């Protein structure tokens, strides 16, 4: 391996080791499953390494990694939906045993019931704290779409949380 390649790998490893936990948590918010989240992070880092030279030159490596993560999640979901069945049926329903913190599970369950695009918009806007413009660029949509999807996503989330909380309290 040449020196340039070694430097490239060392730089990438430093970045990946520092950021993989954060990326995994973002991935979990998107897909709701730790194993899937792990796979998503691995694919993201692989794509990032393949484009490392260009990405480093551009400067915003962190933003680029999150963009890849979100796009990969949406692409995978689209492919899976086309081939198999909806993700809402694939994800495990939350167990609402007496020992579990129910409201949190209600929140998680409501988030997982949102369409993936809405979920991605909410995660980027309110978890990653990205602007409308940054989110639009990452998802390759217009700023108007981001605004409408985040408004609809939030309204739907509110509805779902209300319904699920009511359902849980009745049990």
């Amino acid at each position, binding site marked *: 391996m040449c020196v340039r390649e070694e430097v490239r*790998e060392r730089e*990438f*490893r430093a970045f*990946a*080791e520092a950021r*993989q*936990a954060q990326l*995994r*948590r973002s991935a*979990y*918010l998107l897909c709701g499953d*730790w*194993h899937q989240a*792990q796979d998503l*992070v*691995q694919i993201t*880092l*692989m*794509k*990032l*390494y*393949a484009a*490392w030279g260009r990405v480093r030159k551009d400067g915003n490596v962190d933003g680029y990694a999150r963009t890849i993560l979100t796009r990969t999640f949406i692409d995978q979901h689209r492919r899976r939906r086309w081939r198999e069945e909806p993700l809402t049926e694939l994800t495990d329903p939350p167990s609402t045993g007496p020992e*579990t*913190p129910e*409201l*949190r*599970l209600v*929140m*998680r369950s409501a*988030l997982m019931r949102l369409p993936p695009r809405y979920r991605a918009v*909410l*995660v980027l*806007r*309110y*978890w990653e*704290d990205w602007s409308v413009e940054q989110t639009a660029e990452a998802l390759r949509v217009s700023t108007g779409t981001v605004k409408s999807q*985040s*408004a609809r996503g*939030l309204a739907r*989330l509110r509805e779902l949380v209300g319904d699920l909380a009511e359902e849980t309290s009745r049990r």
Partner: protein
Amino acid sequence: MNGEEADVVRIAFEQILDAAEEPAARDVVDAAVAGGRRARRRRLALSATGTMLFVALTATAVTALPGAQPQHRPVPLSPPSVGRPSPDRAPSSASVPTPVSASPHPGGPSSGGSPGQGPRSAP
């Protein structure tokens, strides 16, 4: 959406993450480096193949172009003093001098012009 609602959503996300029992993470960096290297090599190989194909196709196209080969061969002119102009060939002022074109007067015997000849410009 106001800032308060954004904070509520963020707190909800934090709670989701806190509630979820995160399993021990396996290291994905090695696998990512190996996969990324493979992807990069594949991309480089594809790009090299594409470039070679492009060069080969361009070279083929250039050699096959009609303008690339010398098609315009110079037609040997007949010697001016040999023989007389053949009747089946159109009169050419360049190769066969005729008495009409030699006349300096535009109103001379050739002013009517032969059929098929365009109007001459004034000297």
